[in-house]
């Protein structure tokens, strides 16, 4: 292939042409401050209002419940910290899962230092939250449950409706990090009883550095950034107008084509999974087969390490990611892969390929060939594989002797 094959859409996506076109006028033509009185400012304000409405409709929410932030991380931080503060007179207990994004996990660690108690609920082998454990973990002083809509590494979709129902019955706030799900799966905050929801622009072909927090009317969380009266006084700072406009355009495109896009992605995904499983021995699909984001593929290949795999894929112009320690900058492999029970050495050999409807079957074939070739090359280099082959050989001999 002579072009780059981008299979890391869970990390970020490129803006579509339509998104860029929508944003362009707001850099140097309609650059007015939305808070200003004159017409130039009013144009910016109008553009924000429109984007807010588009987003609210996509979630079956009200426009007044959408608060723009500088991305998914800020929305997660805000939801957790502000809710903890606002409801601390009711209790200091928060429930989350072991497979959250660091934007949630590290915020929970911060809150723990501030005197809150956090319970991290386990997931099963497929990466689905254990609902019975969640129910058991609820205490009279539980103020917040935060569980992600879908996981960024293994793509598992969580039982959000069940969690929402449970939280509602017990009078507990429910926040979900929907950064990976928003724009890829239909979400109805009413039906799912979601009180707060985080999303980010750059995961659905919108710009980076823009996101939002949905806060249900009546949830009494306070402002996170103090200053001006923007975002109904809850999030100060002159609005990122081009970012908001681009986000709005991306949401419009995503929801207009949600079904076709995800159907195409599912086809590519299932083809890729089937090809890898039939071509490469000693591999394991991580995450649930059905309850899975349309574009997510995550495999572990025994006896090899993820970073080497990524570098070799990069040399074949394939962009992917891994949960190995070397790619996370720590000594431990991904907390998500460990949470689903993978031994360290197998977690080190993981590969995440996240697709978009823009990818093609031809690309999938090229990628499978590339992975098969690289895995074989790395296995030939691996002392673990050498030991495995020798052991098999010895066992084979033993068996023939017995017969």
């Amino acid at each position, binding site marked *: 292939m002579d072009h780059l094959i981008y299979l890391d859409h869970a990390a970020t996506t490129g803006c579509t042409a339509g998104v860029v076109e929508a944003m362009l006028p707001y850099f140097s033509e309609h650059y007015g401050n939305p808070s200003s009185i004159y017409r130039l400012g009013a144009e910016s304000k109008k553009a924000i209002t429109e984007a807010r409405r588009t987003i609210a409709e996509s979630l079956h929410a009200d426009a007044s419940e959408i608060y723009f932030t500088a991305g998914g991380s800020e929305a997660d931080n805000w939801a957790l910290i502000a809710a903890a503060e606002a409801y601390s007179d009711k209790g200091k207990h928060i429930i989350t899962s072991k497979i959250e994004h660091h934007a949630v996990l590290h915020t929970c660690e911060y809150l723990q230092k501030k005197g809150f108690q956090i319970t991290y609920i386990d997931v099963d082998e497929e990466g689905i939250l254990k609902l019975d454990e969640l129910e058991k973990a609820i205490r009279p002083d539980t103020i917040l449950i935060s569980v992600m809509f879908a996981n960024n590494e293994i793509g598992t979709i969580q039982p959000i409706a069940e969690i929402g129902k449970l939280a509602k019955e017990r009078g507990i706030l429910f926040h979900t990090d929907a950064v990976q799900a928003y724009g890829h799966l239909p979400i109805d905050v009413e039906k799912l009883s979601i009180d707060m929801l985080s999303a980010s622009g750059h995961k659905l072909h919108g710009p980076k550095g823009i996101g939002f927090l949905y806060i249900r009317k009546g949830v009494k969380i306070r402002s996170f950034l103090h200053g001006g009266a923007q975002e109904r006084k809850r999030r100060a700072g002159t609005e990122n107008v081009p970012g908001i406009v681009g986000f709005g355009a991306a949401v419009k495109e995503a929801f207009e084509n949600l079904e076709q896009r995800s159907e195409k992605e599912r086809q590519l995904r299932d083809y890729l999974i089937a090809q890898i499983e039939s071509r490469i021995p*000693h*591999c*394991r699909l991580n995450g649930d087969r059905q309850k899975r984001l349309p574009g997510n593929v995550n495999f572990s290949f*025994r*006896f*090899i*390490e993820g*970073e*080497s795999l990524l*570098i*070799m894929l990069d*040399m074949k112009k394939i962009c992917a990611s891994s949960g*190995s*320690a*070397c790619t996370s*900058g720590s*000594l431990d*492999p991904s907390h998500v892969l460990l949470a689903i029970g993978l*031994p*360290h*050495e*197998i977690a*080190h050999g993981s590969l995440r390929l996240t697709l978009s409807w823009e990818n093609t079957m031809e690309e999938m074939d090229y990628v499978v060939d590339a992975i098969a070739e690289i895995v074989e090359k790395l296995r*030939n*280099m*691996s*002392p*673990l*594989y*050498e*030991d495995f082959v020798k052991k098999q050989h010895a066992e084979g001999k033993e068996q023939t002797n017995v017969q």
Partner: protein
Amino acid sequence: MYSEKVMDHFTNPRNMGEIENASGVGTVGNAKCGDIMRIYLDIDENQVIRECKFKTFGCGAAVATSSMATELVKGKTINEALAVTNKAVMEALDGLPPVKVHCSLLAEEAIHAALWDYAQKNGIEIQGLEKPKADIHEDEEEEEY
């Protein structure tokens, strides 16, 4: 992130493979941390390293440091090989990112472990060579897919 030399040794590793009936074999690191290196030495009667090969499970830097380490000890006497430090390996590769320095230490350890094995097998003592840290254990349950 990696120097050209590291990339070169990663993509075209030198001396990758096994030596049958090697004079000394050393395996260091563990799968838990994500790096395992195995060095094979073929040492002649004058204690000169005739052949040196490696196998490595690990990141790009782990492969490159093993490859470079085999290059640096090949043709050397066992005493000269013992003096090859992780610094020498790093310098020969035009440096490593700070988080990858441990890979070069592992390469040094792997050479030492192989020399130790050689010394054990031949009942000799190599001045300045210490017993390597415990060999790797596959302490996790074998799982079949």
